[in-house]
């Protein structure tokens, strides 16, 4: 048993930390958020140059073949800085589902993601089937026309292609469509954590057999595996947020003086910060377990992801709420970073099954 990160993994973390600390401060992020841009193009190019966009892909697809541990490192660090760039939608959701598939054109599509030149999104959510991702109403007719609607398509506005979950004659399918194709329409909005998101409608969009990425059980397994990996990633992001919440709060209470002393002198605040610290450590422990098991052959491999997601869903929000409380009025000010962690925690809890959903999944 050895639970230390390798030297290579430590270096990766340092590299990402350096970027986040020197080139991604909150005020720069705010400028982008308040502009008409969805994310920082320069940052995105830098991600590509550093090879971060190629990390999890197999070597055959032109990637580094990194696993869930490296992805967790990246997301933990992104969480601390509340990074808004569309990594999850491109690399984890669309990219890794393609990479694991037997789809013929996958290498070229993944190349586009790795170089940062094209965006792809996974359209897997339907308004009527919250958290039930294997029973879409979106369908392909006998004459190969796609009809239906998808919501919460992350980064959908920037995507040139979509991977859409749907059914044809009761068979589950993942199909690739062009967002510019006839019959595709969408409108966009922002998520609570400042990401761009789209709702798509499909009206008699023509599908050819070569557009089918996978079908039947293969398609279902691809989606389940990918969503579990994505759940792990956003949970790692939540762990990063929890660490930042307690660290920033400790820092603030040391500086903030009331009654002629730093408020960190007050035991009631100290103990609350200790609770925040402990919850972040426990979350980290569950992250270790989940990232070490998710790629294993164990029957329980997704159970540990559920345990992690249930924990961060509940305690992540608590941690962010405590951070706000201990920052006082500053905690609820839009211009301060600290309150934004709560929005991130709400977003993370809502995605891929909330705490209650994963608690049930865990106990099955």
């Amino acid at each position, binding site marked *: 048993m050895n639970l230390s990160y390798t030297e290579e993994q430590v270096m990766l973390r340092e590299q990402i930390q350096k970027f986040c600390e020197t080139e991604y401060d909150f005020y720069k992020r705010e400028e982008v958020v308040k502009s008409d841009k969805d994310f920082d193009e320069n940052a995105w190019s830098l991600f590509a140059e550093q090879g971060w966009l190629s990390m999890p892909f197999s070597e055959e697809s032109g990637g580094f073949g990194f696993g869930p541990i490296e992805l967790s490192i990246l997301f933990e660090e992104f969480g601390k800085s509340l990074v808004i760039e569309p990594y999850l939608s491109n690399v984890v959701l669309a990219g890794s589902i393609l990479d694991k598939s037997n789809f013929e054109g996958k290498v070229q599509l993944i190349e586009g993601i790795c170089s940062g030149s094209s965006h792809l999104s996974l359209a897997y959510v339907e308004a009527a089937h919250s958290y039930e991702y294997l029973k879409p109403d979106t369908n392909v007719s006998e004459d190969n026309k796609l009809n239906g609607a998808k919501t919460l398509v992350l980064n959908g506005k920037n995507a040139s292609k979509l991977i859409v979950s749907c059914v044809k004659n009761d068979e589950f399918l993942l199909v690739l469509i062009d967002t510019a194709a006839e019959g595709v329409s969408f409108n966009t909005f922002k998520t609570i954590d400042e990401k761009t998101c789209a709702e798509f409608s499909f009206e008699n969009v023509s599908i050819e057999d070569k557009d089918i990425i996978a079908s039947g059980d293969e398609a279902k397994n691809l989606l389940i595996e990918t969503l579990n990996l994505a759940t792990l990633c956003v949970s790692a992001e939540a762990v990063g947020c929890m660490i930042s919440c307690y660290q920033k709060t400790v820092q603030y209470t040391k500086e903030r003086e009331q009654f002629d002393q730093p408020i960190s002198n007050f035991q009631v605040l100290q103990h609350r910060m*200790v609770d925040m*610290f*402990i919850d972040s450590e426990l*979350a980290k422990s569950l992250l270790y377990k989940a990232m070490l098991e998710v790629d294993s052959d164990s029957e329980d491999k997704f159970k540990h992801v559920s345990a992690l997601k249930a924990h961060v869903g509940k305690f992540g929000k608590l941690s962010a709420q405590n951070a706000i409380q201990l920052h006082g009025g500053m905690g609820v000010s839009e211009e301060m970073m600290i309150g934004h962690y709560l929005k991130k925690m709400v977003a993370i809890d809502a995605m891929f099954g909330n705490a209650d959903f994963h608690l049930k999944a865990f*106990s099955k």
Partner: protein
Amino acid sequence: MDINFSKEDLQFRDELREWLANDYPKHVKDKMDKGEHLTRQDMVDYHKALSAKGWMGYNWPVEYGGTGWSATQLYLFNKEFGLAGCPPLLAFGVSMVAPVIWTFGNEEQKKRFLPDILDFNTWWCQGYSEPGSGSDLASLKTKAVKEGDHYIVNGSKTWTTLAQNADWIFLLVRTESTGKKQEGISFLLVDMKTPGIEVKPIITIDGDHEVNSVFFTDVKVPVENLVGEEGKGWTYAKFLLAHERFGIAAVGASMRALNQLKEVVSELNNSDLDKKVAEMEIAISALEMTELRLLSDLENGGHPGAESSILKIKGTEIQQGLTELFVEAAGEYALMYPGAGGYGSNDKPSGPEHAAVSLERFLNFRKTSIYGGSNEIQKNIISKFVLGV
């Protein structure tokens, strides 16, 4: 990263399991499995069985007859024994006073005391807390005045676990009342048969006689029973408390309780309770991984410090939480405690077997968040040494 134990560690685990299957004294196992009280003799038999195997000195260096086990082996030992439902090992001799004796005691003291601890010929108890000194231990008042070749001890100790069974007690006493309160403390070893010692039971809310008050009236203790230097007792006391942390997370024991709880709850068809049990299972998994992370750090030459307070806080919260869920599962039968034989008897009231045991444990386990440095003290430690406030 590799979450799997090495082949050697797994072999070691098999060896532990083999002992538990074949050599764990059967009369002790039967009582433990039924949740019955153990007698003094049961405890002696259990510890002597471990001595016979050579495992009594589980956390001792080989030099003094210990096992010399690695941190991982210690972890596995604690976990497997917890999973098997064994009684917790009495820490007072083997893992509290013994390390103080071999670290700060003289050769004569090592020869005189260590072998008997290893063979469980002497039962030790701990004379730390006093009626006026709990978490603020350094404020203790029990006084030892040197007269010729003896110390004359006067005062009282409290919450002394199983003092009624003990042969010896290690005492923190005040040998100097001026100056800083930490600096006038000394560490004495005292034979419980010495005239002037009186043990009075304190009955806890579960009806059990586990703890005592111990009174000292002009008790004569030979000066050769002083450990180390006079006035340095506080240093030794703190050193000892660091050793008390072993196994504090009680992961194995909590996993066993969880499995029993799941069996009980599976027949109740109560989805609210199911949810609480699932949360508990996740909490235990998080605790286990936290302990493994600290263990890995230790094995890689790290020095995890105040982080181990997390194990105390969460470990005891989980232990208590489990007893609370058993009480919930007992439903109306939670009213029926104690049984017809009264407190302290092994008579069970009518109703499901798990109910009576659960009430006793629920009440008894309130102690866990108080002893070994209360959970609030642990939070102070984390606050100071980890958060730096």
